[in-house]
């Protein structure tokens, strides 16, 4: 999971993940992307999908003349890897640094803060 993906590629991955791990047909992906306001041309989409396949994020399977794409990396896996990467890069691996920034920077709504607090308590009960 060392590979980074571009913003456009991430958009495609989000559509694939939204399919719930099920294989997605090319036409279906194109439609969903268009619905999200990204009416890309066929060639552009194929190029981007090929790049994702080469990076190991997707698996392509030919069914007749149609291509079917299955995610090899789940959304959670991607998020956790990206977060780790982000922590390493910005906070030198310190998660508390990140949390304190979220709180002191006023980036959390009250509800989110509550949720986070509950999560932390649950975690300490487990220990």
């Amino acid at each position: 999971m060392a590979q980074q993906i571009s913003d456009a590629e991430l958009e495609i991955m989000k559509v694939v993940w939204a399919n719930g791990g099920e294989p997605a047909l090319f036409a279906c992906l194109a439609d969903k992307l268009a619905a999200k306001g990204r009416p890309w041309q066929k060639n552009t989409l194929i190029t981007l999908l090929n790049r994702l396949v080469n990076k190991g994020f997707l698996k392509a399977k030919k069914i007749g003349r149609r291509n079917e794409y299955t995610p090899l990396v789940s959304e959670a896996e991607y998020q956790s890897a990206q977060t780790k990467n982000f922590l390493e890069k910005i906070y030198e691996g310190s998660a508390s640094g990140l949390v304190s920034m979220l709180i002191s920077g006023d980036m959390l709504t009250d509800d989110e803060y509550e949720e986070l607090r509950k999560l932390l308590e649950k975690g300490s009960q487990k220990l």
Partner: protein
Amino acid sequence: MNTVFKLFLSMSFSGAALILALLAGKRFWRDKISRQWQYYIWLVVILRLLLPFAPERNLMATACQAVEQALSGTTLSVLPQPMTDTEDADVPVSVWTPGSVTVDNALQEDENADNPAPDFKDAAHLSSGNENVGDYIWLVWLAVVSGLLIRKITMYQSFVRYVKDGCSPVNDIAMLERFSDAATQTGIKKPVELCVNPLVSSPMLIGFFHPCIVLPGTEISEKDFHYIALHELTHHKRRDILYKWLVQVTVCLHWFNPMVYRMRREITRACEFSCDAAVLAKVGKDHAPEYGKTLLDAMAAVRTYRENFGAVTLSENKQLLKERLVAVMNVRKKSKTVVMLTGVMTLCLIFGAAFMGVYPAAAAQPDSTKEHRSSPAEAGNAADNNGQTPIALQAEQYYEAGSFPMFLIAFSRMDEEAKGAWLNRIYADGQFMFLGAVASQLETDSAHIQQIAEKAYADDSVIFFSVVVKRMSEKTLKAWLDRAQADGKFAFQSILFDLLDDEKLDAMEEELEKQDETARKQEYLEHGIVSDQNLKTFYYESQLVHIFLDIRKEKSFYFLQVNPQGTVNVKVTRDGNNHIESVDYMTDAEVTALFGDMKEEENDEYEASAYDMPQIISVNEQRIAAGAKRWFGDYDLRSGDKIRYDIEAETGDAIMVGFVNNADSRFSDTTYCSALVHREDGVLKCTADFVCGEPVKDGQYKLYIYAPEGALGNVKGSVSIAHAQ
């Protein structure tokens, strides 16, 4: 010799003849026929070079007959003999040799052209005597082929690796969308990858199965990107990489054939030309100027990795680029006639390819010997029944197709009457290139030569006259000279003087030139051009002339004088009687068209004109002992003088070149303009430029070469001093 190898040699020969034919024809059709055709027609040649067989079996027999007809009667009677002598052995040698002779003739315009029989015998002897050497040669050929192929492939791989390593995919979605637009416009279904690599200097297409267009950077305007994408995608669509590799493989296989290298160069050019034409056909002619500008911009960067074969780049080199720009501006729709003509020419060439390849191919197969034996009789019959018809027909075809070598073969087999008729036709058509080729086949001072000379002389056609005088004896030349002098025809006289090597005549020529100059000076004066005594400086309408050009009607003879100080460009046009018709200022376009190539040299001249002719001191010393200095004379140096060292030593580690102002003073104290160079990468070479100035005071200096670390061996080169004016 190995039969397969011989077959291969014959393929190489017929391929070379086809290449010659195409090259000769190029000047006639360059701007007239579609660029696509000019590109793909080479495929016929490549197939000829690669495929040993003719398309149809029965064509072989016909072709054999045709060729044997083309050989003279004497050859025919000789032909069967070596065949029976060496019945089991390699018959083909004797058969393909005449073919090779004709090719040589076409190349060198050999005087023996009308009599290939002796060569043919010699060659037959040689080849049968050197059977073992033949085997050896075959192995050498194979070794070189594999060596070249391996080198080509490894170099290509390393090139692709070099490009791919530094590649990053383009993530800009807007650019990718525009790229898709271009792909749709080009009609490409399978998407092509788009990458950026700052290490490449111009956009290129690499990879055949996984095509990828590599850009040097993403900071290009939308328009430029569109054109670049269209150009490279068109290369991909047309499978140009495959074509290029086909050419490379052909060159590797025929490495001994000088013509294939010429062909490779032509194809590279034709590839870019036709790709430009294809792009412009798609986007419309109005885009030509903008497309041309993109080509220029792409060229602004210099390539960093030299070996770019196998990849299709947007800009192959500068000279080619210039021609492409001109071609780009001249794109126009081809008329119906041209399209038809193209079709006919293609057929001619394919027929020619089959015809030429078949003859040796058939010969190289021992079982075809029987066909051969019967063919002389048939050929004889054909010749008896129907004198010139087949040859005349062939000649007609080759003439139309502009194919010198094949036309020559046919011409040499014609009778005198037919030759005369052809000469008249060539003359009437103004095909002096053909006349030049054909003249070599005519006997010295023959009636034909005299006839053409008379005609050319009467028509004042200097160019035709200059062709036929090459086939005249000294006596005839002198007779012509007397006549030209009596008639006062200067142009003809100067041609004849050049050919006659005689001291007395040289003096006469000088005298004549003077007369001519005086006459011309007078003539110019009558048309408002004032010139100095030596016709070096011209004034027109009280302005100093920069470029002065005087062209004869048929453009065969011109007088050109350039004066860097001049401000106007003047052109003198003459009518058919060689009288001045008009004097005009040249347009910028004319200047560029005529002197575009010379511009750079001219600039050098301007620069050089600030200096006197440089003084060259040549250095050639076998040995300079360690610590010794060698002196090379005294020179006056003044501020502003230019000094250039260009000295190389074969052995030794370091060399020092410089000047001292007094030989008696200590070395280290007063050395000027000195350069100390150490051996680098195995080369010890001192090249340096200096312009005299502080601390070099005006005065006399001594030039020295010094060996500071160990002795120097074989010191060679030159020092040049250009004194400032």
